[in-house]
């Protein structure tokens, strides 16, 4: 039986998506021009000389310093991002290192990854969602160094999944055999988080 939503008496649409946005806004989302910030705790401020990035299994990781990381080949990408709190932002411009590049250097050593971040945040992703030109570790937004409140010095960028998967202040990708839940996934958010299937919460 299909559940039919009741019409909300007196409710009328106010937002109109322009024709050029057609097909770009997932169900239940609305377009914003702002860049809202959502984080569970205070914004960490990690000095660049103490920053590093690691990829791999615990104990056998490839690690880059900030300078080494910035010397890796980077890409400029313009993508739409979708936050589980309902906002979608179109045409966001980032610069960063493709996760393909990182895994090619560190070794493809497992089917799942846990992103670990300053502040203790974690999120889990299948490696196949991090490869094939679908994910980056981004350090610039709109041509400027990424601000701390938006995840700087560097954040994961996985635009085809809800934005909580694009972990701020990311410091490592730990490769794993199983798809263990990360921070929000442990609090009832969806293990995968596809906005086009509206996978906001466990069971969606």
């Amino acid at each position: 039986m299909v559940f039919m939503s009741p019409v909300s008496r007196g409710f009328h649409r106010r937002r109109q998506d322009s024709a050029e946005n057609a097909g770009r806004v997932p169900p239940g989302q609305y377009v914003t021009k702002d860049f809202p910030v959502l984080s569970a705790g205070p914004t960490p401020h990690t000095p660049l000389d103490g920053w590093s990035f690691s990829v791999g299994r615990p104990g056998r990781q490839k690690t880059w310093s900030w300078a080494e990381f910035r010397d890796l080949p980077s890409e400029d990408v313009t993508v739409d991002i979708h936050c589980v709190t309902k906002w979608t932002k179109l045409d966001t411009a980032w610069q960063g290192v493709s996760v393909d590049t990182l895994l090619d250097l560190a070794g493809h050593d497992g089917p799942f990854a846990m992103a670990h971040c300053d502040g203790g945040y974690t999120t889990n992703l299948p490696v196949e969602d991090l490869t094939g030109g679908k994910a980056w570790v981004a350090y610039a937004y709109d041509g400027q160094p990424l601000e701390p409140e938006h995840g700087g010095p560097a954040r994961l960028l996985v635009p085809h999944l809800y934005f909580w998967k694009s972990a701020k202040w990311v410091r490592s990708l730990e490769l794993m055999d199983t798809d263990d839940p990360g921070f929000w996934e442990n609090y009832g958010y969806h293990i995968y988080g596809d906005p086009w299937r509206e996978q906001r919460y466990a069971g969606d």
Partner: protein
Amino acid sequence: MAGTALRGRLTWQVAQVLAVAVETASVRTIMLDVPNWPGHQAGQHVDIRLTDEDNYVAERSYSIASAPGEPVALTVERLDDGEVSPYLTDELRAGDELELRGPIGGYFVWEPNDGGPLLLLAGGSGIVPLRSILRHRERTGSTVPVRLLYSSRTLDDVIYRSELDKPAVGVEVVHTLTRHQPPGWSGYARRVDAALLAEVAWPASTMPLAYVCGPTSFVEAASQALVQSGYPPQRVKTERFGGTGGT
């Protein structure tokens, strides 16, 4: 940061509006009868979904204002360029149906055995989940000491004002009015920053637990100041209302 037990699937359900109470000129509290409510924790939120006659759907998240065990109440601030909040504050009335699902979120929550002392920092409508925490504390007979610092633009913008004027034993309520103060105002009259928190916040040495909720700029400034004064970051829980995040 261990998670709470996973709940089952969050299904949409139709609640009935019992009453709509005026809090301020732009804020209403919507009291709901949710027939299959599984219960909630203080600090959680719900998703609501509006549907128009052309099947256009708008979804937003709102914090729960009531304590666990009380009927679900949502406090909503009207944002004039919003699509959902003006409907909830101006159009919705007792007897209407409202589709929702929840509760959602398990990190920005407080239970009596989480202890304290508690420092609650609210900017504007960021008071809503903190009010749920205050009511939960009182209803459970908790004696955890609480300081609430609540930043509003003017006295008329203070939500739950009469309730906050009569705090429970062990709860100190401190207001700051950032835009306009009435004659004879004895509270603070400036933005929340490190200097103000040095006067109001529990010292870090007392091992306080802090909940900070409000607009992004408020949360960034307040949480940063707490960390710099020695609060461990994992003892500072935040919830930010981004630019249009709550419309």
